């Protein structure tokens, strides 16, 4: 078990160090997400009564498309440098490689979301520091990244992976994104836990299924 966790830690260390040097993913994701927030804010700002209805959707459109962009690069960078085979040559289990890549992706995505939430708060005049909102964001991101990591590994062997990943991946994550939009709306409106619990539970179930299925399928996807 020690080997399992040390392999995960090594992959996360390597991914964070690589990204800290290249800044390829963070720059692209943040630029895309901020642009999306600004444009959609401009579109709905004429009618402020629409803000409470539209803001959760805008937030998750921004997270979803920026996330898809970032996750495409998860395995693309490994593939371009041939280093995915280097990973497969280590004795680490494929489940540890999946977990390491997924947790690395989760760390990037949560960091990007943490940077985007203040922008969102200013543009839409809402407070992002609500425990329920933060819980929804973290939970939904877990399921989103679990599925995204698997599909990134699938898409990396296709010629037009930048197109293939969103095509394969977005339909699968629609349930968690819809639940996240609904739960985010409730959290921003200050609704009690009882009213948004069903959406949070739906996200938690999706997370569980996504983690189990993705970890199981990854071994079959990554090997020739």
């Amino acid at each position, binding site marked *: 078990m020690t080997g399992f966790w040390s392999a995960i830690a090594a992959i996360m260390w390597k991914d964070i160090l*690589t990204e800290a040097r290249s800044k390829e993913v963070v720059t692209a994701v943040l630029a895309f997400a901020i642009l999306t927030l600004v444009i959609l804010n401009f579109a709905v700002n004429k009618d402020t009564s629409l803000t409470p209805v539209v803001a959760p959707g805008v937030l998750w459109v921004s997270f979803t498309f920026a996330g898809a962009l970032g996750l495409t690069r998860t395995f693309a960078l490994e593939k371009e440098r041939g280093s995915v*085979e*280097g990973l497969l*040559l280590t004795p680490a289990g494929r489940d540890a490689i999946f977990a390491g890549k997924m947790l690395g992706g989760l760390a990037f995505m949560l960091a990007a979301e943490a940077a985007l939430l203040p922008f969102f708060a200013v543009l839409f005049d809402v407070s992002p520091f609500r425990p329920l909102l933060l819980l929804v964001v973290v939970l939904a991101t877990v399921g989103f990244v679990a599925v995204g990591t698997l599909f990134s590994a699938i898409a990396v062997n296709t010629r037009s992976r930048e197109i293939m990943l969103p095509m394969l991946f977005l339909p699968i994550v629609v349930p968690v994104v819809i639940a996240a939009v609904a739960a985010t709306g409730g959290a921003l409106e200050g609704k009690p836990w009882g009213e948004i619990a069903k959406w949070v539970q739906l996200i938690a179930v999706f997370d569980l299924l996504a983690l189990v299925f993705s970890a199981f399928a990854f071994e079959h996807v990554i090997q020739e």
Partner: protein
Amino acid sequence: MEESGGREALAIHASGLSKAYGPHLALDGLDLSLPWGGFLTLFGPNGSGKTTLIKVLATIARPDSGEAAIAGYDLRKQPAAVRRNIGVVTHQPLLYADLTCRENLRFHGRMFGLKQLDERIEQAADTVGLRPHLSRRVGTLSHGLQKRASLARAILHDPPILLLDEPETGLDQEALDMLSALASAGERGRRSVLMATHSLERGLALCDRVAILAGGRIAFQAERAMVDEATLRDTYARHARVAP
């Protein structure tokens, strides 16, 4: 390092290995064996299955049928033990361009769960002449130095078996000489080496056994002492012509 599957067993034993990519049969019921301490050079024209064979033996690709054992460990049932016993060098360095050589080696050492990692990194770097470049990012190195870094990665965990796919590409004469040293430089004695190459001269100089792969099968095999370069060149040309 895990115990070997059995020192009495062969270093590499493959029987009836087949692997297809769509309609193309890359390996066609291939049989192969390599005794401990042996150095087998595998020649073959492009598309003969050399790289696929290395990938299958390295557990990167799954065979469609057949059986194989590395250091006595079954390729399908004990892949992690197989990977602990092999060092692999391919066309690509399998390293991260944005990390330094030392960081790359540290990453691979951690993936193998190696102890005394700093010592091992410096030992491997010394063996391949990489020590002065350990702090440089891999992306800034020449092709030859990247290949040396790749060799250091392959021997970092001191594997008893090396699988080399055209390792001489991009290496200078000094580094080429180092290749033969690698075969005998293991902490546990002479390493067993399977090397695929196009260079007849270099391949013959290093090996004690030679084989020609054509159409996914071993078409010719002989002790090095029993074959000279001219004979091998003729045999190679004949099999290269008839290979599908």
